[in-house]
């Protein structure tokens, strides 16, 4: 079992009606991706979130990050003209082969 999987075991075996912040943030991210949580997990997460302002801050910041990644990493960056010319030459020479 890899160390990553041991972490997951930790999440699944120790989870009762109350969650710690480590478990809550893990479940929050699953929920963010529309994964279906069990009733017990849903209840425990809701309860934890109502009590924990740090995890509520994490939830808001996670949403901000998602939005920021979409906005900032989808900008138009132009290909340098010289590279375009080189590519044009390459494509034309390839086309002439056929």
């Amino acid at each position, binding site marked *: 079992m890899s160390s990553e999987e041991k972490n*997951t075991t930790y999440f699944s075996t120790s989870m009762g009606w109350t969650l710690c912040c480590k478990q809550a943030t893990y479940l929050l991210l699953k929920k963010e991706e529309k994964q279906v949580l069990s009733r017990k997990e849903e209840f425990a997460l809701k309860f934890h979130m109502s009590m924990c302002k740090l995890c509520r801050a*994490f939830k808001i910041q996670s949403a901000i990050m998602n939005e920021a990644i979409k906005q*900032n990493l989808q900008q138009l*960056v132009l*290909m340098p003209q010289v590279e375009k010319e080189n590519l044009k030459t390459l494509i034309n020479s390839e086309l002439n082969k056929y």
Partner: protein
Amino acid sequence: MSEPTSVANVLNPEKWIDSHADYLYSFAYNRVNDSETAKDLVQETFLSALKARDGFKGEASEKTWLVSILKRKIIDLYRKNAAHPQQSFEESKQYKVAYSHYFTETGFIKGEWNKANAPKPWNISDKSNIEQKEFKQILTACLSKLPKMWSAVFSLKYLEEEESETICKELEITSSNYWVIIHRAKLQMRECLEKNWIKA
């Protein structure tokens, strides 16, 4: 009454550079954050497309078809980088911030936020804050500090918006591993942004 015939999409390789080079380059650059790699990916895309053009059925537009080839190449690159990271083992270890950095592992209650590294309020008044050029630089720098596998998972999820099942299949990781990676990567990104941008 007969169905109207749809106009089939056709390929026009002579015009590929003028019509699609900027879009494809931009698409690649935003995902690999390196101009040389982006240029190589676009070149490989065009060459592969030329070879495969006889198989183009015209069901999708030329642009969609070229993007799908480029996407495939980017995923191959992610997979290659994840399997053979250029980061040394030591560097990779350094980049991987341990869970214990964020959550307590001893004491009466385990797994609570460590006070020093817990989320602080981000006073972001409106969207314009995250549209600044400076923010983009910090975001890319934070992404590049993730271990290669995490960065691959993160990009596929948040940029490509791929389903978790697809990502696991592409990168040959288990579902449990996937969620732990997402969790740790998000914690690390959050902290990096908070330190370098929010407080700046």
